[in-house]
């Protein structure tokens, strides 16, 4: 097991991440899906986020001492400097803070889908944390599945989890029904 996993386990109360780490050996990262979309390549601090996403949980790193949430994850708490952290489960709800519609020139796999949307979602549980993602019509729908006219700053959205490759899952977002 790589040392970064041990560090993560040490910092996770309840050993929830540790159980996952022991269950399999992670393959060296392959950068793209078979379609050519980029896969996340976690660093040591970010790895637990992706491990939790792989089982359909949206979790954000928090200080185990002062309880402050922080994103992106990092080794210690900028508020109290504690190195003890936990991963707090979010409701998966948020609102669109901003969005863009990329057009070519893009990497080929993205150019084929353009224009698609990229949204920034302010989490309902932590509005200062804004996750980059895509608004889609369903969990496995493509990046360009949502009608651009449905994009609106302030629109409520809910996380869904799309499996991009084996064991690689990313959160995406669908509009919440009014």
């Amino acid at each position, binding site marked *: 097991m790589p040392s970064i996993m041990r560090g993560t386990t040490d910092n996770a109360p309840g050993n929830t991440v540790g159980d996952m780490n022991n269950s399999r050996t992670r393959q060296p990262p392959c*950068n793209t899906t078979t379609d050519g979309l980029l896969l996340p390549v976690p660093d040591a601090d*970010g790895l637990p986020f992706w491990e939790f996403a792989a089982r359909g949980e949206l979790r954000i790193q928090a200080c185990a001492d002062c309880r402050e949430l922080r994103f*992106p994850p990092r080794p210690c708490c900028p508020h109290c400097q504690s190195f003890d952290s936990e991963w707090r489960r979010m409701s998966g709800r948020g609102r669109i803070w901003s969005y863009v519609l990329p057009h070519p020139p893009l990497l080929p796999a993205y150019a084929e889908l353009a224009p698609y949307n990229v949204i*920034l979602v302010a989490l309902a549980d932590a509005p200062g944390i804004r996750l980059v993602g895509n608004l889609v019509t369903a969990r496995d729908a493509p*990046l360009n599945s949502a009608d651009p006219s449905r994009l609106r700053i302030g629109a409520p959205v809910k996380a869904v989890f799309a499996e991009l490759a084996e064991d690689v899952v*990313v959160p995406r977002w669908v509009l919440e029904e009014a």
Partner: protein
Amino acid sequence: MTAAPATAPARPAAMAPLKDTTAIVGIGQTPFARHLAEPEKTLACRAILAALDDAGIPPSQVDAFTSYTMEETDEVEVAKAIGAGDVTFFSKAGYGGGGSCATVAHLAAAITTGQATVGVAWRSRKRGSGPRPWRNTGAELPTPGQWTRPYGLLRPADEIAMLARRYMHEYGATRDHFFNVALACRNRANQNPAAMMYERPLTREMYMTSRWISEPLCLFDNCLETDGALACVVVSAERARDCRHPPVYVHSAAQGLPAQHHGMVNYWTDDPLTGPSWTAARRLWHTADFGPPDVDVAQIYDAFTPLIPLSLEGYGFCARGEGAAFSEGGALELGGRLPINTGGGGLSEAYVHGFNLINEGVRQLRGTSTAQVPGAETCLVTAGEGVPTSALLLRS
């Protein structure tokens, strides 16, 4: 030491050991084009030798070098090629275009503290014919790329467009405001024979009907892709008086990395629209004898048009949220409230990580710009907003 400013300071300045102690005495550049045949190293040497010739200083006297961490020609190669002497100071500033003004700031500090006497700052880049960095799917994926790139937020244009959309939403900024920026830069480029867009006027019709790059940003909201190199020479104020051209003093210099800043994807702070320019500006004005209303001309980093209103706010030319409206009524044009990017900037002269903005600032204060602001005595030059940044106040 240096002469006192022509007018009495509006307020007593803070202790400022670097104030006016050094000056830019030479500027040099290669042609700018989408494709230049020569390699980056050769272009770097040409720009540096041109700057030294402009200063009237032999290369053998150069003992300091500064550049960007993204610069691929290193000090060893440059120093031995141009025939520099023993070099006693060299440093590089990070964060792409955020490092432009820091190169001069580092030289000013080194020379003022006696670590060197003749400093050269340079940037050479074949971004026109060379690779687009965002196409590299291997090198850019670790932090923070894991949080952005899998979703197709691939390019700097996408990352800034995200902030631009929010800025439009919060403050009523429109595409016409961004057009005001693009037009001002293009109009100045149309006066500058060295500019890539010298013979290419821009109209509102062209802007509004151009293709999207990342909505809400269109083609003309994006800077050029350029092959080229630039350099400048910095010496002490005393030595500057013996050079070929009137000295352009480094009046104040600052870098800025705000608390809890995240780089170009600054999405996880309380206020993503308050960027590094605010941090650099506080330090910059703190040691200056003058304030924003006294700036005669500004060279503001313009990789993307929305960076201008954001920078106008950060550097204190207007209040938060007023940067877009500031651009109305020709304010950014020659004769306007604050003429900007008088060589054409990154949008219309050349995009060489903002170094052309430094050289144009020097030309303005020498009185030799192709779009001269009459009697200009003070110039603000800024580096990239949206990334850890830097800025200079220059004065004649």
